[in-house]
């Protein structure tokens, strides 16, 4: 069956509900329901994951949330008014969607809308309803807007056309996709602005120093975006993303140091290193707390009191450490360091080194090949007896290699580079899992305390299990390395990154 017309129009500022209804009353009998008022509060995370995936999370009353997609409300769920994380919502589609879309992020209020909705029906001479309608009045930042929706009914479309004609003098504009999303889009919500720092678009013949400076400034700006969330302790992802961006910045400067003036490196390196080191402990504590459920599942029930004591201690330390980090980010030391870094990076390029003025694509391709062959050589020295330190080193090299590709991905052949990156991601997962066991064992070892017997028992239990898992994981590391370093991969690196001259086809 054909779908029926349904349209929404924005009405002129001067239009009033009474004027509009009296206009149509010349030809129809009107039956208007009493208007209903509501205030809707919308939530999303820092990265607007829900908005980007076409969902809205709306608090309809104190403890009731609705998840809305373009077709309407898909689920309604209870949660305390302070709920911020997916695990704080009751079992529902809302909880599942938040888990998959928002993950560890907190959802926070982003906007609210005040609505006054008046439904009405138009009846013909037979007293049959022939058109249904709704007047929607919104109040946003002291500005009132009025919308009219008319819905045709099957078999009565001619009345719909007539009603629309009668109301023409009141109409300002037709709204194509009317709904809550449309109303929010009209609000210029700051929380929904893109969070990606603007990066100058790179070109393959851009000089290397210029390109490195542009990327580095974007990284630093991006890292700074997360500081507010770390200080407010909104969620653990703020610190994590801050650290990722600082780590990337350090990698970029270290990988392309030959394109930068020595004086600049001297100024940047200790400052960035100092900024990064201040957050190490807090991140370790976050990781342990986030893994709480899986750690609790590893031990039998009789270790529960020991684990409780451990988590109590760690939560307390986290609180102290979080305050310490927040104080640091508000300190003159941090502000001076970050300002000095930004000032260094923003200076005009000086092209003091031979690499500085070379076309960036040429330099990057050469560097990618060099880094690949370095890792290949490291891999040759790894066997089942190699120390964990060696695995850690090769993991770091893979990370740098991937960062280097990602910094310049827009200049590299898209499809083939994408395949290489996906292979690197696979090996990074295996190496990362192995490293996590090593780090956690070391982390937990630091808490063994003879004066806390129950807690130390739980720690020993966890360490033993993690050691077992680490031992089981080790052969996977070697096999993943073997799978990655095939003859074909070396040929592919040579083919994709070998031709370093500008103008090479992508």
């Amino acid at each position, binding site marked *: 069956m054909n779908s029926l017309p349904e349209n929404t129009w924005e009405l002129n500022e001067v239009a009033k509900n009474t004027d509009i209804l009296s206009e149509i009353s010349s030809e129809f009998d009107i039956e208007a329901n009493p208007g209903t008022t509501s205030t809707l509060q919308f939530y999303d995370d820092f990265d607007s994951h829900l908005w980007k995936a076409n969902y809205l999370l709306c608090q309809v009353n104190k403890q009731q949330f609705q998840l809305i997609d373009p077709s309407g409300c898909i689920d309604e769920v209870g949660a305390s008014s302070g709920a911020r994380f997916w695990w704080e919502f009751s079992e529902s589609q809302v909880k599942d969607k938040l888990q998959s879309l928002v993950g560890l992020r907190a959802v926070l209020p982003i906007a609210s809308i005040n609505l006054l909705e008046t439904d009405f029906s138009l009846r013909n001479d037979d*007293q*049959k309803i022939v058109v249904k309608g709704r007047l929607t009045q919104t109040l946003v930042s002291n500005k009132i807007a009025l919308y009219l929706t008319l819905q045709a*009914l099957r078999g009565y479309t001619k009345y719909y056309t007539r009603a629309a004609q009668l109301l023409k003098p009141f109409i300002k504009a037709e709204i194509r996709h009317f709904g809550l999303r449309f109303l929010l889009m009209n609000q210029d919500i700051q929380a929904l602005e893109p969070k990606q720092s603007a990066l100058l678009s790179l070109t393959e013949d851009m000089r290397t120093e210029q390109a490195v400076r542009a990327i580095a400034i974007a990284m630093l700006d991006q890292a700074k975006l997360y500081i507010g969330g770390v200080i407010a302790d909104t969620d653990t992802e703020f610190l994590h993303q801050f650290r990722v961006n600082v780590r990337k910045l350090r990698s970029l400067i270290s990988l392309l140091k030959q394109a930068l003036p020595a004086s600049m490196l001297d100024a940047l390196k200790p400052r960035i290193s100092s900024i990064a080191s201040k957050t190490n402990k807090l991140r370790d504590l976050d990781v342990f707390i986030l893994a709480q459920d899986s750690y609790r599942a590893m031990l039998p029930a009789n270790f529960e009191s020991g684990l409780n004591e451990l988590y109590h201690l760690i939560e307390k330390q986290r609180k102290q450490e979080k305050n310490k980090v927040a104080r640091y980010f508000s300190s003159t030391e941090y502000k001076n360091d970050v300002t000095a870094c930004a000032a260094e990076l923003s200076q005009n390029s000086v092209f003091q080194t031979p690499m500085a003025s070379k076309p960036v694509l040429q330099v990057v391709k050469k560097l990618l090949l060099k880094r690949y062959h370095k890792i290949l050589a490291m891999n040759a020295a790894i066997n089942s007896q190699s120390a964990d330190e060696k695995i850690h080193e090769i993991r770091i090299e893979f990370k740098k290699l991937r960062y280097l590709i990602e910094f310049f991905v827009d200049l590299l052949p898209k499809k083939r580079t994408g395949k290489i990156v996906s292979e690197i991601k696979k090996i990074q997962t295996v190496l990362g899992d192995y490293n996590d066991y090593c780090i956690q064992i070391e982390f937990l070892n630091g808490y063994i305390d003879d004066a806390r017997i129950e807690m130390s028992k739980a720690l020993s239990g966890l360490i033993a299990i993690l050691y077992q898992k680490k031992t089981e994981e080790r052969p996977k590391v070697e096999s993943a390395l073997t799978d990655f370093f095939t003859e074909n991969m070396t040929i592919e690196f040579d083919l994709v990154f070998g031709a370093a001259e500008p103008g090479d086809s992508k």
Partner: protein
Amino acid sequence: MKVIACYSMKGGVGKTATAVNLAYWAAKSGLKTLLIDLDPQGASSFYFRIKPSSKKWAKRFFNAYENLVKHIKASDFENLDIIPAHLSFRNFDTLLAGFKKRKNRLKRVLKGFNKEYDLVILDCPPSISYLSESIFNASNLVLVPVIPTPLSERTFEQLMAFFEENDYPQNKIVPFFSMVQGQKSLHKATMEAMSARYKMFLNTTIPYSSDIEKMGVHKAPVDVFAKSQQANYAYIKLWKEVSETTRKRG
């Protein structure tokens, strides 16, 4: 999609009132419902304030589903659409007589609504004819209102016999007592006797009620103007029992 026919060979037994109120409650329960008024008198269309098409279209009724779609009208209620009757429907039998495989004709055209509707309710004219046979074939349930009087009992017996003679499955027939006047001993006695003889009678009975008669004045289902009256509760109960029976039959 399920098809329920409100049928009786006898007139004035409450077929239309049943069709209208059941369609209303089915739609209210969330089922996308289509009520087809097959009775040329057009009473169920009238109860929903829907006028028939000005053109005679009975000739095209059994040709294709697309012809029916053109005549669908929205009711005033969510999920409920109606195909109003037309006086030309009185010629259905003559038309069907000219078709081969006429018994399957209605079933075939209704198939087209499968995606659009969960339930089709047929308000049937009081006769036993080619159209009735087409209805028996197309329906999952043939809901039969029976006034508990000897004359209605006789008519019901005739219907059972007709089903048997023509090899229609008798279990499609779902009777219930309609226009019951509890104070009349004749009604009581007939109900007892028929319930004992025919185990398929529904438990729900529809009382004789002025509220049901007033549907013509209000041009609406009982719930709209007599929400807390006995007749309304009876139709709610009837809908629950009919929907449960339909569910059980698969």
